[in-house]
């Protein structure tokens, strides 16, 4: 990373002066607000929006002509945006670009805005071509997150996020000691390989749900088990399904005939609601980034749901096997993952589907070995609180490697 300057304060105001014509305003705004969040979630920075008057950071769109910018743009392609370094604060986007969100088409507004905010906060370009601060746009990534070089640069400027400003999600990383379950509900053993739900959540975190508990699954091992209600206040355990949509930032949990909606760990007003257009007691749910829809599964059927448009469910449920070739009926969990593939879980096994939604050769495989980093001899009994010691195998570079290495060892 390269440092070009820094703000002498850490609590900044911002103002969105205008929006692009190629996106619905609320989607464009959500993309810009999300761009700020990438930086405020790794450094002690806060950003407060103002609707009028002066602001530290000012975002606007202009084209070949601009009354307040000598650096005009060049039409679609090539230069996408530019920004001044601290403490100037102007961030300009080329209004002639096809600004999009949640699709591989056009130019992703959220990612470019996060890059330009990096400049406005004092970062120069990074030599890592996959870093956010790389000069050339590397295209839309459905589960985008900052590169370690981006994080190192912003923390070099403003320090690490300090404890009092840590949000609930940070708590996942620093357990205050084994969570004490309020009632004696047995703590599940992730090495049993059985799941109620799996979810690729905000910031690319993988969450596994079983009984009243949830834990994260990372490349190097499992996070501590927490009561679901400790993270998502008001949410019961023993869930039927869970799904996060990067398109809306909504997390939906399903249980029985109810649905809960959260944004990060905050329940949206008016929830839980009664499920009325799809059957209760669902089995699983996933978000498919290719068509940006949520899929709900029960028995041998599925529903396809557009979160932002009225969906005609009269032609559903449709047979799962018609669209997801080779997967079992009544899955216990399902998710689209960071590697662009879709995963179905049932019993102790899981199936991996390619981009054509066909089960790949060599599946199903064992969930406990490949996802929960468990050795074959780990007892699959229900452990009591605190003695979960997932026997993570060697820390490998990424879960996919774990999947391949473990299975080849098994074979």
């Amino acid at each position: 990373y390269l440092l070009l300057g820094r703000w002498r304060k850490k609590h900044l105001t911002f103002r969105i002066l205008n929006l692009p014509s190629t996106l619905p305003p609320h989607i464009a705004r959500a993309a810009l607000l999300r761009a700020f969040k990438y930086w405020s979630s790794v450094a002690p920075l806060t950003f407060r929006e103002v609707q009028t008057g002066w602001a530290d950071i000012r975002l606007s769109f202009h084209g070949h002509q601009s009354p307040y910018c000598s650096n005009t743009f060049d039409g679609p392609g090539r230069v996408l945006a530019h920004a001044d370094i601290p403490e100037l604060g102007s961030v300009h986007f080329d209004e002639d670009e096809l600004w999009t969100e949640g699709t591989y088409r056009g130019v992703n507004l959220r990612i470019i805005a996060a890059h330009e905010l990096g400049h406005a906060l004092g970062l120069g370009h990074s030599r890592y071509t996959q870093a956010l601060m790389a000069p050339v746009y590397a295209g839309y990534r459905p589960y985008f997150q900052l590169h370690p070089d981006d994080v190192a640069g912003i923390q070099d400027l403003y320090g690490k996020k300090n404890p009092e400003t840590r949000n609930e999600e940070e708590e996942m990383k620093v357990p205050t000691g084994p969570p004490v379950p309020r009632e004696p509900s047995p703590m599940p053993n992730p090495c049993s390989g059985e799941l109620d739900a799996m979810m690729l959540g905000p910031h690319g975190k993988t969450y596994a749900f079983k009984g009243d508990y949830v834990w994260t699954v990372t490349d190097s091992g499992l996070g501590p088990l927490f009561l679901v209600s400790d993270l998502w206040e008001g949410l019961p355990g023993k869930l039927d399904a869970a799904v996060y949509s990067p398109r809306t930032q909504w997390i939906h949990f399903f249980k029985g005939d109810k649905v809960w909606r959260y944004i990060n760990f905050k329940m949206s007003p008016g929830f839980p609601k009664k499920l009325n257009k799809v059957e209760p007691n669902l089995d699983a749910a996933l978000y498919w980034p290719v068509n940006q829809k949520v899929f709900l599964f029960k028995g041998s059927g599925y529903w396809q749901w557009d979160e932002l448009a009225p969906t005609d469910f009269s032609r559903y449920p449709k047979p799962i096997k018609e669209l997801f070739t080779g997967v079992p009926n009544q899955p216990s969990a399902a998710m689209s993952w960071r590697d662009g593939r879709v995963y179905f879980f049932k019993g102790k096994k899981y199936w991996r589907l390619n981009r054509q939604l066909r089960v790949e050769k060599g599946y199903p495989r064992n969930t406990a070995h490949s996802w929960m980093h468990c050795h074959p001899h780990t007892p699959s009994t229900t452990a009591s609180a605190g003695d979960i010691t997932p026997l993570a195998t060697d820390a490998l570079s990424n879960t996919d490697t774990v999947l391949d290495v473990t299975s080849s060892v098994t074979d």
Partner: protein
Amino acid sequence: RALGPAEESAVDYLLQYGYLQKPLEGPDNFRPEDVTEALRAFQEASELPVSGQLDDATRARMRQPRCGLEDPFNQKTLR
């Protein structure tokens, strides 16, 4: 020697993004070795084969959408 149009636009790119430094005084044209060095810096930063020649891969990379700010990847111009 006079530059062809493709080379001209490549030099503009290298200038715009900080790989070539406009001489503070004296004639505008660049010594061939400056352009070669600037191309090498760009190719290395773009994880392209470092040839110092304006090959197709380099031209394609220069056409990719990007940020309008300069790149600090040519140590000489950065200094």
